[in-house]
């Protein structure tokens, strides 16, 4: 009996060590984000390193969840697959109390070169789609930012986190007209308009589950709502490195 317990403790120790190593490996992978190759559809590709947590920032949403990318796409007027071209400053709005307190909301514009366009989209393959992406807020008092560090991502940080060349799926609707701002947020005002958007181009806004980047492993990394691994969009028999390719194929089959 004594030996039995000794052996059990020994195996348990190995089990714990294995678990600890696995957890450590996961953290290491998440932190270092190395660029690796992955095989998508039989062809080896080099995917840029991606960290969409920078894009999501501290924002956490309550949103209507969909069971598949097809269902999510049906709630959008644009379903696009493309490649990130770059980031620029988006619209900034402010709510002021008139006594020195100002709540800022910052957006960025993500330029995407469209490869596949579905739904009733205004975008066409080969064109650039302009996607507004929320990048965080800030409180200023008498013009001074508060706190010890910024609570929103800079354009440079976004560019480093999701660099040009990253493949992306965008499910989006047109940004509401400027006149809608006062209805949605009475008291808010536009401080600066989006940069880098050509005159006449349509600015679109992703749905909560509608901004999915292909990460360096071939998996997906969401830029708005978090927890994409729990959405149930990827069948269990699809290997994680094929997740993005699987969803892209599903979007490609849409009418």
């Amino acid at each position, binding site marked *: 009996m004594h030996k039995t317990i000794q052996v059990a403790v020994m*195996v348990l120790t190995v089990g714990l060590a294995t678990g600890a190593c696995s957890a450590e490996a996961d953290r290491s992978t998440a932190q270092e984000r190395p660029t690796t190759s992955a095989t998508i559809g039989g062809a080896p590709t080099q995917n840029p390193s991606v960290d969409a947590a920078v894009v999501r920032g501290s924002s956490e949403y309550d949103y209507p969840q969909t069971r598949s990318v097809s269902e999510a796409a049906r709630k959008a007027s644009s379903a696009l697959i493309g490649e990130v071209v770059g980031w620029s400053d988006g619209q900034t709005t402010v709510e002021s109390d008139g006594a020195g307190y100002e709540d800022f909301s910052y957006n960025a514009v993500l330029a995407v070169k469209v490869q596949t366009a579905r739904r009733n989209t205004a975008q066409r393959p080969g064109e650039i789609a302009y996607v507004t992406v929320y990048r965080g807020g800030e*409180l200023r008092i008498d013009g001074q930012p508060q706190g010890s560090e910024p*609570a929103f991502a800079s354009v440079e940080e976004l560019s480093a986190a999701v660099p040009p060349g990253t493949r992306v799926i965008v499910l989006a609707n047109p940004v509401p007209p400027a006149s809608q701002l006062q209805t949605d947020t009475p008291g808010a005002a536009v401080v600066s308009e989006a940069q880098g958007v050509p005159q006449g181009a349509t600015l679109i806004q992703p749905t909560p589950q509608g901004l999915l980047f292909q990460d360096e492993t071939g998996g997906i990394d969401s830029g708005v709502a978090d927890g994409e691994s729990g959405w149930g969009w990827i069948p269990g028999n699809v290997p994680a490195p094929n997740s993005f390719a699987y969803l892209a194929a599903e979007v490609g089959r849409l009418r």
Partner: protein
Amino acid sequence: MTTFPPSVPGSRPRRISVRGLFIAAIVSVLTLSTLGSTVNADTPQPDGPPDGGDHSWCYLSGFSERTAADAAMTRLREQTDVTTNYPGSCGAKTDVRWTQGDLGGSFGRGECIVRLNGSCDVYRITLAMGTINNTQQPVNQRSKTSCHELGHTVGVRHYSDNFFPGDDTAHSCLRSGEVTGAWTNITLYGNHHRTQHINITF
């Protein structure tokens, strides 16, 4: 390279009994599954923990849902160890600033807008009333989303479907999604969140 079991000079090779292997396997599986659920259940808040102390709240100038916000603050105070405080207007250290706006299809958003030395000093909650009012149960949706987003400001994270946090088996307002007639506990915080997170911080 390591050997198993490790060889020690002078010692007899240890025999592993079937019974021993059986017990060890069960213990290992239980241990690993416990580790796994711990990792999956509660990921850290993306903006660090809240700063503790009184949880004060205020409204930005255009916010029209004060009744819902007040009710959410009251429920938080009644269900947890959190003490709440309404200062009358927004100040530099007011913990939760309520506003409303378009969120591209989401019902609500909780976010940190002032970070201070690794924790979040000031949060902002945005209710998307246009989207909420288009749901099947707008009043319940507003209550649930208010409770949900306020939960983020006291250090808990949301979950989907039946992926309950911790050992909970009942739903709470931290469940993400559109409220339907089948939803329960839409203004309640779950036991795991209350005892393992909120009450520890406050």
